[in-house]
């Protein structure tokens, strides 16, 4: 016993005097580096905003607020107005939203309430997640070659011009793309509804349908709305799929089957061919509008989700 404790005393004096390698950086410089990384992210966002503003300056100065309401988009005469694209973006996004909600709310109810565990649930959840993983350009491809011909047939039956592409087709494709976003948040808020509330209703003789209508949906309502808002934010910014099936027309769309352009699709189509600084600045201003609108909607949606205690 004494023998090994003597060894330990030797070890101890050794470690006391041993030249312990100085750490590569001290604690305070390491913490500073971490803070710098945080500040960098902040500055990045600020820089993005200001870059957009500065680069749109020629257009901002030239057109002012008229830009948002003017429907002329004429590169030849250097007259630019955003209104057709605002309309195109809103029309496709809102229509897509309506269509997607028809599916995403049932999915949320199904996965949140009826079938929360088990192989079916996992299967459906994975499928929905995969939908979110498919690249936008592939949605566009399928929309262009598979969906558009079908829409063309529909248009011929309805007696409208059979473009096949247009707001309707774009909305259909978009609706499929945004289902996963509202479905997953909706599912989470629905599964968070306290079971004692549900059980109280059931014990009073309510059917499951009535529990959904009278207990679950009211409770989870704002969360579901938040999920829908977030999928709206996604729809507004979606570019490639929309570009490939919206028909690329810069005039005000006349109806649901008309070709059009969204804010994102006109940028995608014309950016590389834009000649002249005003043209480019106007396109960048469209990007600025897109940035502001999507940011506001996303922030509102996230705030509601945060308040409901769900991590989107």
């Amino acid at each position, binding site marked *: 016993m*004494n023998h*090994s404790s003597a060894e330990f005393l030797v*070890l*101890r004096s050794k470690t006391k005097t041993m030249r*312990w*390698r100085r*750490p590569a950086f001290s604690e305070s410089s390491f913490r500073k580096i971490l803070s710098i990384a945080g500040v960098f992210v902040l500055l990045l966002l600020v820089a993005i905003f200001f870059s957009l503003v500065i680069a749109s300056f020629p257009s901002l100065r030239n057109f002012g607020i008229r830009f948002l309401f003017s429907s002329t988009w004429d590169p030849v005469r250097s007259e630019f107005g955003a209104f057709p694209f605002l309309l195109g973006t809103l029309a496709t996004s809102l229509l897509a939203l309506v269509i997607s909600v028809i599916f995403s709310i049932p999915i949320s109810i199904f996965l949140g309430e009826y079938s929360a565990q088990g192989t079916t649930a996992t299967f459906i959840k994975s499928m929905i997640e995969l939908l979110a993983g498919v690249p936008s350009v592939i949605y566009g491809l399928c929309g262009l070659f598979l969906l558009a011909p079908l829409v063309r047939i529909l248009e011929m039956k309805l007696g409208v011009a059979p473009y096949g592409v247009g707001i309707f087709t774009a909305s259909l494709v978009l609706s499929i793309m945004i289902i996963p976003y509202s479905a997953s948040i909706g599912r989470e808020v629905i599964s968070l509804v306290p079971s004692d509330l549900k059980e109280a209703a059931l014990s009073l003789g309510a059917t499951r349908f009535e529990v959904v209508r009278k207990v679950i949906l009211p409770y989870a309502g704002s969360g579901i709305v938040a999920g829908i808002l977030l999928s709206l934010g996604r729809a507004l910014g979606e570019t490639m799929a929309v570009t490939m099936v919206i028909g690329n027309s810069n005039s005000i769309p006349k109806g649901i089957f008309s070709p059009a352009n969204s804010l994102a699709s006109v940028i995608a189509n014309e950016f590389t061919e834009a000649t002249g600084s005003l043209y480019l600045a106007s396109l960048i201003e469209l990007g600025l509008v897109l940035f502001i609108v999507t940011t506001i909607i996303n922030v509102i949606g996230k705030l509601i989700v945060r308040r409901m205690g769900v991590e989107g």
Partner: protein
Amino acid sequence: MESTVLKIENFSAFFGENQVLKEVSLSIPQNRITAIMGPSGCGKTTLIRCINRMHELIPDARVSGKIFLDQEDIYATDPIIVRRQIGMVFQKPNPFPMMSIYDNVIAGYNLNGIRLAKDEKDRIVEESLRKAALWEEVKEALYRRGTFLSGGQQQRLCIARALAMGPAVLLLDEPTSALDPKATSHIEELIVQLKDTVSIILVTHNMAQAARVSDFAAFVYLGELVEFGPSGSMFTAPKDKRTEAYLTGKFG
């Protein structure tokens, strides 16, 4: 006459405005087991965390007073050096899950970037595991991750890890409260054997354990050191009324 390894002088600790330790003065004898007892929240854990300077990691934490390790003021030394000389074993065993048993024991050196020759490392690992009464059980599985070990074995691994640094003082923060009775008694036997190697400060809320194992005992209540003395006399004839009330279970 006992020699002193750690001298605590008028030591106070604060969380913001809240004073958790009030002018504690205590001399920890060398190569003995000193138990620190008291009801929950009395400051005993804070006290040992001040000894290895872990208390100050909490934002808003403040201390005053002095603590001397072998005549060196530990608050005037780099806390990293202090922690290498005063080891700590925690209530819940916390071996590094991504490392093998071998690497766990030698972690203090590896993580600090100390380069040692392989046979020196082997020697330290074997000695530390032997001292922690774990060598025979793991010597065939040194390079496996420690997750298959039982709670008691994991705790002995943590003790070995702390011992590998050759500390002067070993702080044990309720080391057996998460373990079953069999593992607890193994660790208690181990602690008694270890006092030849290191000076031990044992925080425990288990009075029977303190009575079984310790040579000296300190009773802390509401941040004050109420009484300190040899365990034998303290448990049979406490001098302070509060100590007596605690020992007879009037409050826990």
